[in-house]
């Protein structure tokens, strides 16, 4: 059984005011995430990426209201039937607006808050806090108030707080957006390591094609309330029409490959920088075989 699975899921938020129609965000979404898998969820602004993320931890519809239909199974639970607090033991969601989930007076207490609520003993909490802060590279901020940190630093605190829960499904809603490249690499590496060590599944909602190509096993594109495409990066970015129609960009090396293919009749299909570099090195090396 998949770790998380949605089949024909539809969701409409409650109407803005009595008498107004209910905004339909998801029409017919089917998606599977297996243990240890990394899936990138892409799609234009307002496509419903965040809503879909919140269907997996039960916040939709438990806190938002509205009508959710179809089959959802997360770690064997239907998120509609189980209290969100119960799901939070295994499903962690880093929200897009990091600031809205930071509530404690210091970074250290913030990261300890989740495990503390799980009733874990103090020594282990301290261990998890130190570990999570180190993973995202903010040990030195541990005594600072989150409210005084920069946007990107707050985002790292929110990620650390979720990692400290040791979730089996980690959902990240546009988490890299506010991070500088060094921080992004650090956090992405940490997540990839965790995934290998603990077989955690990752769902990453992002609009950044380059990050999706570098990190994900599969790219699922959400458009008009449905999954328009669900395949490995090289395959996904080759669907130029769907990519254009859904407002998702392509990595610049993929664009470069297309430009060179037109001129040279080659069949390059790069999605990451190392792939492009290796092929170009061979192409441009003097004395290459004709």
């Amino acid at each position, binding site marked *: 059984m998949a770790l998380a699975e949605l089949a024909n899921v539809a969701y409409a938020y409650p109407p803005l005011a009595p008498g107004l129609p209910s905004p339909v965000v998801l029409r017919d979404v089917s998606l599977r995430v297996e243990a240890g898998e990394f899936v990138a969820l892409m799609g234009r602004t307002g496509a419903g990426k965040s809503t879909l993320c919140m269907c997996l931890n039960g916040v939709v519809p438990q806190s938002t209201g509205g009508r959710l239909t179809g089959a959802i199974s997360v770690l064997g639970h239907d998120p509609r039937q189980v209290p969100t607090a119960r799901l939070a033991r295994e499903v962690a969601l880093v929200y897009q607006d990091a600031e809205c989930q930071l509530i404690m007076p210091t970074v250290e207490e913030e990261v300890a808050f989740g495990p503390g609520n799980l009733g874990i003993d103090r020594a282990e909490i301290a261990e998890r806090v130190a570990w999570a802060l180190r993973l995202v590279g903010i040990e030195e901020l541990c005594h600072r108030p989150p409210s005084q940190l*920069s*946007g990107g630093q707050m985002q790292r605190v929110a990620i650390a707080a979720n990692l400290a829960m040791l979730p089996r499904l980690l959902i990240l809603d546009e988490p890299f957006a506010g991070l500088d490249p060094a921080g992004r690499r650090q956090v992405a590496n940490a997540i990839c390591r965790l995934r290998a060590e603990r077989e955690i599944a990752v769902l990453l909602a992002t609009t950044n094609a380059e990050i999706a190509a570098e990190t994900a096993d599969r790219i699922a594109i959400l458009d008009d309330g449905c999954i328009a495409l669900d395949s490995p990066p090289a395959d996904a970015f080759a669907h130029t029409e769907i990519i254009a129609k859904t407002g*998702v960009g392509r990595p*610049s090396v993929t664009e470069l490959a297309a430009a060179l293919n037109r001129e040279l009749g080659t069949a390059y299909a790069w999605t990451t*920088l190392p792939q492009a570099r290796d092929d170009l090195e061979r192409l441009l090396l003097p004395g290459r075989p004709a």
Partner: protein
Amino acid sequence: MSQYAIEIRGLSHDYEPLHPAVHDVTLSLRQGTWVAICGQNGAGKTTMVKHLNGLLKPTSGAVMVDGLDTRQASVAELARHVGFVFQNPDHQIFCATCREEISFGPRNLGEPDKVIHARTEEALAWFDLVPYAEHPPALLSYGQRRLVALAAVLAMQPSILVLDEPTVGLDAASAEGLLQRIQDIHRRGCTIVLVTHDIALAARYAQEMVIMAQGRVLLHDRTRPVLAQPEILQRADLEPPQITHLCQSLSHLGLPKDATTVQEAAKAILAQLRRLP
């Protein structure tokens, strides 16, 4: 009036003692330029630009905006000159509908109703927000709320526009659309200050770049020469755009160090191929 829209002299700002967020920054930005302020998380970018509309006052040093000393001018007075779009749109959105949100600024500037109406409708149309004009902004997506915040600031027609990470959370097409509109505003003569750690974005649009690290300015120059110095970017924990990075990693095979677009890179590769025996 000075040819500089913004003059920062010896600016330092401490939120708390021993944690200077900005340290002795001196910077002059010409009227009508488009400058990108780049640096890692916590480099002091946001702290520095919050001095431009007087939200923060210097701990030491001075900031002049359109000739006004921000230590003396009120935030309201500065708001006529400087439009500020925050990193988090929810920090500046508070009205019941998008239309009200956008008309709020010009109304506060005391513009006549006709002008308020014209600017509001223009801004709604510009950002494809007409279908949401009567919706509460709070119920739009994060990316859409960002457009509302920008539309509301532009309706005030500032001469300097400060954008703090404006494309974060936007899809490629919306980000492109947003930047095209900012480019139009720039063409009308507006000075643009773009805070970002997205060098690819900065490279495509900004004429000048300021690289910051640990509260200091490491470099201020035109965009292209800055990009050709990977060591400075590295010191600031920044990465060049993917295409620039690729060409730099192949510079030993004759590719340029400062290519920023796919077209440039493709042209250079093809030219290099022709040169091969």
